[in-house]
C-alpha cells in the first residue's frame, strides 16, 4: 500500500472516533474497578491507569452479594428461556414460512404487532397471569412470558424463506415427514439465524432488570442485575464508583468473555441474518 487513499484514511478516522465513543464506558469500568478507593481527586473519572491496581473493589463487591447464586440463577433463566424459545420460534417460523393455512397473514401480522408493545405496560397483566399459574416468585415465572418470542418467530420465518425449497423437495422425495424436514434439513441450514437470535435473547435476559424484580421476591431467586443494584444504587448519596465498577465488571464479564471467544461465529451470524 504505497499511496495513502484519502477516503480510506477518512473512513479509518471516523471508525476510530466511533470505537472510542463506544468503548469509553467499558474502558472506564475496567480501570475504575482496579483503582484504589479515593474521593479526594478528579482521578476517578480518568481513563488513565495511573495507580497500583487493587482487588479491594472486587472483594467488597463479592462480599456485598451472593455472586455464585446470582450467576446460577441468571444462567438458568437465560438458558432455560433460550431452550424453550428455540423450540417455539423454530416451529412457528416454519409454519409461517412454509405451511399454508387460513388466516396465516393475519396471525403473522398479529405477531409483528406485538413487537410494538413496550414490555413495561404488560407488567401487571403478566404478573396476574404468573400468579394464577402459581409461578409468582419463581425463576420459571421470570422466564415464562418470554417462551414465545415475536422477534424470534419473525427472524426464523425470514431465515427459512432464504433456504431454497429444493432441499425440502429432495427430502420429501426420500420420504421425510414434516418434523424430519424441520429437524434434519431446515434447522442445520438455519443455524446462523438461530445463533443470532440466541445472542440477542441471552444478552437481553442477562441484562434484564425490571421484570425479574417484579416477579422475584425471595433473595435466593434473584438474578445478577438485581443483586448488583442492591448494593450499587443509592438515591440520596454519592457512589462508591470503584465498587460499582467492580460489580458491573463481574456481571458483564461472562458475556464479554463469550463474545471474545466466539467473535467470528457471532459476526458471521449477524452478517448472515441481517440482525444488528
Amino acid at each position: 500500500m504505497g499511496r495513502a487513499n484519502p477516503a480510506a484514511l477518512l473512513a479509518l478516522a471516523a471508525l476510530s472516533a466511533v470505537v472510542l465513543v463506544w468503548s469509553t464506558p467499558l474502558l472506564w469500568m475496567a480501570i475504575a474497578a482496579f483503582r484504589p478507593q479515593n474521593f479526594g481527586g478528579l482521578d476517578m473519572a480518568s481513563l488513565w491507569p495511573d495507580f497500583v491496581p487493587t482487588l479491594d473493589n472486587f472483594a467488597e463487591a463479592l462480599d456485598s452479594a451472593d455472586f455464585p447464586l446470582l450467576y446460577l440463577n441468571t444462567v438458568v433463566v437465560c438458558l432455560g428461556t433460550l431452550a424453550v424459545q428455540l423450540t417455539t420460534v423454530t416451529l412457528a417460523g416454519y409454519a409461517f414460512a412454509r405451511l399454508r393455512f387460513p388466516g396465516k397473514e393475519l396471525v403473522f401480522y398479529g405477531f409483528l404487532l406485538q413487537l410494538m408493545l413496550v414490555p413495561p405496560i404488560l407488567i401487571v397483566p403478566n404478573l396476574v397471569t404468573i400468579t394464577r399459574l402459581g409461578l409468582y416468585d419463581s425463576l420459571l415465572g421470570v422466564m415464562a412470558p418470554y417462551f414465545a418470542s415475536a422477534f424470534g418467530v419473525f427472524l426464523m420465518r425470514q431465515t427459512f424463506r432464504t433456504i431454497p425449497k429444493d432441499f425440502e423437495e429432495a427430502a420429501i422425495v426420500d420420504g421425510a415427514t414434516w418434523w424430519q424436514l424441520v429437524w434434519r434439513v431446515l434447522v442445520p441450514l438455519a443455524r446462523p439465524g438461530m445463533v443470532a437470535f440466541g445472542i440477542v435473547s441471552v444478552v437481553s435476559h442477562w441484562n434484564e432488570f425490571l421484570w425479574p424484580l417484579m416477579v422475584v421476591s425471595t433473595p435466593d431467586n434473584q438474578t445478577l442485575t438485581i443483586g448488583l443494584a442492591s448494593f450499587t444504587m443509592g438515591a440520596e448519596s454519592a457512589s462508591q464508583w470503584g465498587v460499582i465498577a467492580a460489580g458491573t465488571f463481574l456481571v458483564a464479564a461472562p458475556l464479554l468473555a463469550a463474545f471474545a471467544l466466539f467473535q467470528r461465529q457471532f459476526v458471521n451470524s449477524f452478517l448472515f441474518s441481517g440482525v444488528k
Partner: protein
Amino acid sequence: MSRIASAALAAALTLGIGSGAALAATDIEMFFPVPVEGKLAKEMKNLMDRFNAEHPDIKATAVYTGSYDETNIKTRAAIKAGRPPAAVIMSANFVLEYQINGEIQPLDPLIQADGQTPDAFMGKFWPALHGNARFAGKVWAAPFHNSTPLLYFNADHFKAAGLDPNNPPKTWAEWVDAARKLTVRDGDTVKRYGLMLPGNYDYLGWVMTALTMSNGGLYYNPEFGGEVYYDTPSMLGALTLVDNMAHKYKVMPDGVTDGKAVSTAFFAGQASMVVLSTGSLSFIRQNMKDHYGVAFVPRNLRNAVAIGGASLIMPKGLSDERKQASWTLTSG
C-alpha cells in the same frame, strides 16, 4: 441511613411485641428499596435474622425491590396480582396515592389493639414527621427513615474566601453573596462552583419544594392531595433564584447535575456548597477530607423544607395472622 433512622429500625426490631404463641410460623415479606449507600441489603438481612430469632412464630423476609420508584411499581403490581407484601418501606411521596386508591389499611385498629392511642403512637416520632403518616383522620404509615434537604458547606473554602464557617448563609441574599465569593474562575472557565444542587429526578423536585417553602409558599396542597402550585409567585421566585445562580451569577453549573455527581464534586473540592439529603450525612462524614459544616437551607421568608424519605405501610388484603405479624415488625 441516618443514625436516627438506624435507631428507629433497631427499635422497631427489638421492641416488637410478640403476637402470642402460634404453632406455625407466619411467613411475611417486607419490600424495601435501597435509598442510601452501601451494604444496606446485607444489613437488612441481618436485622431480619435477629427479628426472626426473637420471634419464633414469625418468619420475616426482607425483599430488595430496587429504587423508590421500582418499589412503587412492584408493590402496585403485587397488590394487583393478589400477592400484597406484608409491609413496604414506601417513599413518603407515594403513601398518599395508596391511601387515595384504598390500597393500604389504616394502622389505628392495630395501634388500639396494643392498648395504645394513635396520639401516643405518633407521639414517639418527631412532630415534623406526622404529616406524612397521619392524614385524613387516620394513621396510614409509620415513619421509618425520613430526611430533609440540608446545606453542606466546605469550611476550608469558607475561610479562604473570607467567610465565617460558624456563621453560614441564613438568607437567600447571603447565600447568593457566599456562592459568588466561593466561585473560583480562570478566565471564562469555572474551577470551583460556589453551589451545586442535585438536578436529577426526583431530587430536584424535592429541593424545589424546599426552596418554594423557604420562599413562603407551598408546592402542593397538603389538605387535598393532587392539587399542585407550579405557577404561584413563591414557586416562580424559587425558580428565579436557581436560574440566577446558574445563568446570571454563574456560580452553579447549568444543566442537570446528578445527585451523585454533586456529592462527588463536594468531596473533590469542586463545589463549596451543596444541597443534599440528611441521608447523605454519614456518607459525607466518612468520605469528606476537608472540614465541612451543615446548615439549614437558607430562607427568603421562612425556614422550611419538605420531609422526604420513606414510611412503612401495610397493604390491604392480608390475612389476620400476617397483619398481626406485619404489625409486630412495624411497631416499636
